[in-house]
């Protein structure tokens, strides 16, 4: 992970500020930075979204492809994650520098999203045991300014919302051979239900308190953080502790509660924004990467 050098005096300053619920950039402890979301940014994917959170920027593209279902769950499709830590984000990622982080991130994403409670995997099934849709979720880190998990999860949710899977039909000939037929209408496509898709809230323990959406400087002051994935109902689907320091059970409880609260509050406006954008249809003003 990208790190910044923070001097002792700065640390003290940050710590004291957080203690008084006033962070360096003026936010409260449970406030997010300014967030921008745009969907349908990469035309040759089936669904895509770009999210900027402060200076953190991630791009998520989803490609749907036909694959074979896993033998244990023949009537479900599945998701595949790949996180590409581009050297654009920070020079440390150059060469194979970002690989470790990428693996770590994608492992977490598997845990959070690739289960039937998050995404309706059954709707991805085309023909039980034979064909199913595989959603390849490619995450590209464009810029790192802390709180990657949250930004990625929001982008994934937005991209899943945006995903249009071409509708296919299975035709059977008299010999029982099955043939996949593709509709020739590009508008004839299937949408995913993203209602239950969770968002990740990362809480950083700084001093005695914890903050959400930590900047890199704040992160440097923290010894441990808790990653919580929360659905729109406030259900916690996954937690994970990262960082070298330890957390006592009381603060874990406190942080989980805060995470639930923040997560729940995050979902409603997110869905709102996505639906608004969808509604605009072709009239939408494209911003893209130059805006």
């Amino acid at each position: 992970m990208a790190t910044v050098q923070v001097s002792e005096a700065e640390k003290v300053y940050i710590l004291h500020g957080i203690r008084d619920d006033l962070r360096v950039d003026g936010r409260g402890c449970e406030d997010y930075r300014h967030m921008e979301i745009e969907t349908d940014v990469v035309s040759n994917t089936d669904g895509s979204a770009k999210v900027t959170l402060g200076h953190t920027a991630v791009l998520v593209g989803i490609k749907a492809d036909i694959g074979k279902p896993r033998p244990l769950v023949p009537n479900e499709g599945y998701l595949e994650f790949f996180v590409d830590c581009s050297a654009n984000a920070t020079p440390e990622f150059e060469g194979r520098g970002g690989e470790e982080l990428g693996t770590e991130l994608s492992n977490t994403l598997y845990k959070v999203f690739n289960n039937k409670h998050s995404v309706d995997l059954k709707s991805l099934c085309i023909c039980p045991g034979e064909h199913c849709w595989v959603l390849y979720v490619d995450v590209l880190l464009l810029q790192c300014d802390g709180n990657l998990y949250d930004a990625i999860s929001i982008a994934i949710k937005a991209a899943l919302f945006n995903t249009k899977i071409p509708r296919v039909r299975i035709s059977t000939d008299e010999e029982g051979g099955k043939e996949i037929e593709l509709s020739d209408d590009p508008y004839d496509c299937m949408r995913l239900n993203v209602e239950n898709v969770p968002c990740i809230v990362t809480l950083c323990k700084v001093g005695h308190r914890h903050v959400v959406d930590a900047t890199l400087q704040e992160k440097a002051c923290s010894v441990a953080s808790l990653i919580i994935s929360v659905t729109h109902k406030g259900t916690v689907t996954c937690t994970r502790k990262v960082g070298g320091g330890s957390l006592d059970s009381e603060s874990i409880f406190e942080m989980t509660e805060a995470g639930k609260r923040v997560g729940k509050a995050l979902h409603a406006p997110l869905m709102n924004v996505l639906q608004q954008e969808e509604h605009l249809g072709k009239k939408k003003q494209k911003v893209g990467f130059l805006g």
Partner: protein
Amino acid sequence: MLKSKTFVKKTRSGGVMKIVREHYLRDDIWCGSEACTECKQESTVLQTDACMESSLCSYPHYLIPDTNVVLHQIDVLEDAVIRNVIILQTVLQEVRHRSAPVYKRLKDIIHEKEKHFYTFTNEHHRETFIEREPGESANDRNDRAIRVAAKWYSQHLKTSESDTDGLKVVLLTNDQGNKQKAEESGLLYLFTCILVEEYIKSLTANPELVDRLALSNDDKNEITSSKVLFPEHLPLSRIQAGIKSGSFVQGTFRASRDNYLEATVFIQGEGEDGTEILIQGLQNLNRAVHQDVVAVQLLPRNQWVAPSSVVLQDEGAAKDDNVEEEEEEKPVLLISAAEAARKATGKVVGIIKRNWRPFCGMLNVSQIKESTRHLFTPADRRIPRIRIETRQASTLAGQRIMVSIDGWPKDSRYPNGHFVRSLGGAGEKDTEQEVLLLEHDVPHQAFSQAVLNFLPKMPWAITPEDMVRREDLRHLTVCSVDPPGCTDIDDALHCRELENGNLEVGVHIADVSHFIRPGNALDKEAANRGTTVYLCGKRIDMVPELLSSNLCSLRSNVERLAFSCIWEMNHEAEILKTRFTKSVINSKASLTYAEAQMRIDDTNKNDDITKSLRGLNKLAKILKRQRIEKGALTLSSLEVRFHMDSETHDPIDLQTKELMETNSMVEEFMLLANISVAQKIYDEFQECALLRKHPAPPPSNYDILLKAAKSKDVAIYTDTAKALADSLDVAKVDGFPYFNTLLRILATRCMMQAVYFCSGMDNDFHHYGLASPIYTHFTSPIRRYADIIVHRLLAVAIGADSTYPDLMDKHKQSALCNNLNYRHKMAQYAQRASVAFHTQLFFKSRGILNEEGFVLFVRKNAIIVLIPKFGLEGTVFFDSKDKVAPSIVFDEEGPTLTIQQHTFRIFDKVKVTISLDASNIQHQKIRMALTDPVIPGVSVPVPDAEPQAKKPKLDR
């Protein structure tokens, strides 16, 4: 402005791919109209006074046809009357997608300046581009795009024009729905939308165009009875699934020439070989037409049948349409064949690809006077009769016409078609020649401007750049020897003594590949034509005349570029050195075979040319002897030559070609050059050398030859080419000098076709007839495309020219070979047909002749007689429909045919009377009747030389 086009595609591996294409819109696409003042176009295509006399549109107008109009009515659009047409890009793309031949024809029209066809790239125009909307099918979108473009045009023309009642656009469609939509969206105040049928009918000045309208779907039910005659064709998706699962097989439909109820489907197997499936009966044939690609289902084994040997011609059609069905099925073949003769039999379940082309033939005028529906009989017997609608039946009767098939509904006995054009009166020489070329698929149109653009500019001279990689051989005494009247001289020879006592022999071939560069229009045209076709009195060139008869032709006393193959030989004709080089030569004389022969024989002449010829002749004799010792075959076929009247181009006399020593002299060196080059290019390019092979015939081919020889107590051995050649040499019968020639003619018939192939795709290179392990064609690049490729390969091999990717691609090379083989075969057929036609003309003028001939084959009910004087073969039938068949006994072993005590054997000498049978004007033929030996009831009395008025039994 940037838009993107998105569509989803299924990949071959079963995946699904989303494809996004960038699509740029622009505002500098001009309308192409002369009347327009707004557009900043440099040149205009569409005229201001776009007048077509239509009773529906009295004002000047431009036509915008939609896709279906172009697809179905291309024959109408091709007519000179239809001008000032806007072809939208949408239409062009759709046409290209749906029918390649129509697309090509459309492109040709667009290139024609007088037609004033303008392509408007509406898909890239800022104001006419539309995106597909949700719920809209691709077809609907295209229709809408066409309407939007039409709207734009009418608005555009209105604003840009000064006077008000000026130009309008007319949208032509053949879809009521499209017209309705145009009406609904209130576009009609802007432009007119007319059904194409109505529009064509409204062209008062040109009523004949109506005939050329293709029948659309709506018209079909009107014509046919409601009775369903044929099983439904399966949809393509089911056919594909069936082929995948193996329940159907895919093959090319080949109708039988002799029996309209029978056909075979040729299934392409692994490599060269394939299997055939027999199809019998109208129901099973199921509307397939010769050369269609069809899906066939095999019948259960107990329903398999043997091919019938009956000749059946579809004559039910002579009656009127409605009464025809009754006796149709009568001849369905109930012959219970011997088990062994049965073949795999199947039925056609669907058509994968129609291969309809315009067919030549003649009209059978309907007996009902006012009827506009007539049947058309194609010249090719394998094509069914076609029902067409025309009002000009009386003018078209007796003419050769072309007709296209539009469709074959399942409740119609015959396919429906429409008249395309008239070729001229039947029996006229030009018409028949045209028919002959069309039916043999010989490309014979004049060369297009695009092709001519690649010709060198005249006056042409050799430049210093040309000389860079060339050897200057202008000082050599080179001469050419060709048949009289030859203008495309592609080979020249020289021979001289070297200082070391050896002989230097050079074969110089016109350097056509210098002028025809790979990949350009000229090259593509030549590759497509494949060969020059020589008909009697006419030559259909492969390359434009400037090249064939001038720049490439190695005429005397001019400097010409050549590709030379030069050997150093000793006096025993052993090759000591071979080299190839591009060169410049200056031929000192172009001689005919006879002239060359005279020079050689004239002992008084001792000039350089004559010496050179003598040297060549001497070597050629040695070479020929060596070749024959190796087992090369000398076969024989009678070639005839017509003496043409210089004024009328009618044949006035005919004689068989004579062969002189000089013929074989030239041939010998050409063979040598071909073999040397073949070896060289194969050594250099193992994978992609273009070679020619002549496979050894299977032993069963020789059966007839062996039987024939045996009947004269002559032994023929066919184990090897050498054995065959030797035994043919000694085969002689006392008192029958012509026997040997006859035997050689028979042997020729046993041979296989020689073919071009690519060395990387085959491993059998042997040339059986020439007894050469490797062979190619190098010596006639002016008239054969294969030679051009060989020239290019050789040029690369010696570093005289650069290569290009297609030359080294064995698959492309192989595809080219297939085309060349096809063209050569067709050219041969066309040549034979031309000779046959001229023979007919000749006999027409001569009336009835009595000649002597030999029995060449014995058939079940006939003998085939060869008349050496004319090189003419004819069949003498012993059974005919109206006569009681005399007692005929056919013995297959002999083969002999005994008719009332007289037995015919192969090689028997007979006398026949020859006349022209013009009873069927489409298929005139030479009729022969026996006069000697006299067999009562079979032979005819010797007629006087005066032509006897034959009763033609007209079939209409």
